[in-house]
């Protein structure tokens, strides 16, 4: 019983982290129609800035609130100064651009922080393990489960229940029509891109105490995030939640029960879903 609970929590904690990264990736694709290769680097940037904030203030909590806006503003500035001018072109231009941004940011971080991984201590409240009926479980992972759920519900409510969410959905559905109806499409795109980067930054801060901040963490996570988005459906927040849960479960349970095939399981699930629903579990058929 304790074992099953542990497996469940492991899957949920990983899913929480994956959701923070993949939600932004999915949003950017749904609304900007751009596959953002730089998304993982914003996640990494979040982790490193989190390290800096903790090092400067000695506290973890400020990092959680300060870093995402900073990463978001950087993302918005990059969108407004580069990506904005090539929406009309073929997708290869956007791929090249975001890939270039990823390389520049990654190497800048390496120059600034050096090659050594940066450890971040969880806040005192979340350090160590808690006894859940005979199961010792790290408090920090429980926090990740809660954080993933909270952010997921918040983003979903925002999209469904607010006027801004309505405009965003309108732009996603048909940006020309939204433009005619008075929505400022360029501004919506910039803000969505910034918000997506902020989510990635939040994911990075949250990941740092679990994985440390290290070079290459962006590339590692982006592959999983793409799988999540493909499974869940591009542009769908609920799809990202479902996808995160499936990938989280496939990775942790696969590694536990079928270690030799752990790597394959995630892609096998994705393959099956692509065969029956090429637009993803909750995506829109085009």
């Amino acid at each position, binding site marked *: 019983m304790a*074992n099953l609970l*542990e*497996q469940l929590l*492991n899957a949920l*904690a*990983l899913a929480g982290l994956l959701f923070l990264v993949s939600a932004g990736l999915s949003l950017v694709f749904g609304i900007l129609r751009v596959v953002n290769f730089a998304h993982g680097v914003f996640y990494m940037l979040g982790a490193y800035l989190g390290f800096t904030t903790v090092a400067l203030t000695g506290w973890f909590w400020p990092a959680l609130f300060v870093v995402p806006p900073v990463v978001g503003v950087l993302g918005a500035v990059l969108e407004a100064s580069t990506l904005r001018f090539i929406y009309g072109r073929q997708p290869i231009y956007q791929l090249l651009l975001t890939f270039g941004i990823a390389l520049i940011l990654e*190497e800048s971080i*390496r120059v600034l922080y*050096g*090659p*050594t*991984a*940066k*450890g971040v*201590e*969880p806040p005192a409240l979340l350090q*160590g*393990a808690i006894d859940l009926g005979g199961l*010792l*479980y*790290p408090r*920090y*992972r429980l926090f990740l489960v809660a954080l993933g759920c909270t952010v997921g519900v918040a983003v979903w409510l925002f999209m469904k229940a607010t006027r801004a969410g309505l405009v965003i959905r309108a732009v996603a559905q048909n940006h020309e029509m939204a433009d005619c109806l008075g929505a400022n499409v360029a501004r919506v795109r910039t803000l969505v891109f910034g918000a997506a980067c902020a989510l990635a930054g939040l994911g990075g801060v949250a*990941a740092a*105490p*679990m*994985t*440390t901040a*290290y*070079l*290459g*963490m962006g590339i*590692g*996570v982006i592959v999983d995030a793409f799988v999540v988005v493909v499974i869940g459906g591009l542009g769908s927040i609920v799809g990202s939640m479902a996808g995160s849960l499936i990938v989280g479960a496939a*990775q*942790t*349970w*696969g*590694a*536990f029960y079928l*270690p*030799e095939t*752990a*790597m394959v399981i995630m892609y096998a699930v994705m393959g099956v879903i692509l065969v029956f629903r090429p637009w993803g579990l909750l995506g829109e058929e085009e």
Partner: protein
Amino acid sequence: MRRRRFLEISVATLAAPTFLRRAWAQGPIKIGMPTALSGSYAQYGIQAKRAADLFAKDVKAKGILGRPVEFIFEDTAGDPATAVRKAQKLVEKDGVKFLTGVALSSEALAVSAKCPEWKVLFMSTINGAGALTAKSFHRYFFRVNTSGPMGARAISLYLAESPMKRFFALGSDYAWGRDSAASFTQQITAAKKDVVGSDYPPVGTKDFASYIAKIRQSRAEGVYLALPGQDATIYMKQAHQFGLNREVKPIMEILELENMKAVGDAMVGAIGSSRYPFTVDTPKNRDFVKRFHELHGVYPDMFDGETYEGLEWLAQVIAKAGTDDVEKVIDAWEDSTYDGLEGPFLMRKCDHQAVQPGFAVECVKDPKYPHPIPKILATYPGDKVTPKCRTEEFS
């Protein structure tokens, strides 16, 4: 007056020491370093470069054979195909006769395979794969550093005498991780102890929770870890958060300073082997650590020390050969000895593996240092930790 001036210059030139004129004619001794300076494995390339910087400073005044030494760096980003391309550029365009500083075993295997054709000397100072001095050995390859099997041997010898009886082996899912886990299992079984489970997480695993659960359930007393740099850091962090490190002793194939800096106090208590622990107490090493720290502001990690030793030894061998002709340098190096930072080295003629001391170390806190450091638990003489010639087996 013109004729007089001409005569003066001629006489001065003729009177100059002969070696100086020859040195001018021959130009610098070039050492090529195709190494990972960017990407996930940059920490290893940066160590090679730091060692080269210190060595270049040491020989700046005198040079080797009176000739200046020039290092040429190329970034491979840790990719074997790029490493071969960059090495080829160094050999064909820059005319280097010596290649070193290659970061990964996969890169080393690819570059080393080309060296007999290029007729250049490949000096490994980082690469662990046993095959380099066994199955893939050739005349142009030399390994100055401790190999992976030698590291596994040192820690196995230590564990054979420890009270721990049950072990779990966790190796990264590629050649080095699987080889090391297999080698460990073999030697621990030979010591009449049990390996109660093993697993092979993929390279770049960011969540070790499932493996941690399995290790806990196996009721092992120690877990043997052959995980590369970053993976080891993440594992140690997470195992600490799960409270596993108190129950199951972490035993690392390589206990790196980089990991200790990143993991911090959660790493204290981990044991393992070290290719070169900077805490070795020899006069030569104390001097090296001091000068290294003065130049770079950090303490030398394993491959800082190993690369520095390689360069110093290579310089000695070139001086002994009296030339930088590759064939003559190889002949001079075989069966030669060198006074290394951590003790005596011997370059075995049969497989060009440097016989050298092996170490079992423990990660401890010391108020004198800003991060945990390796404390030496046991030192094993070279003949006990070096495998039989051109094999990965021990007698």
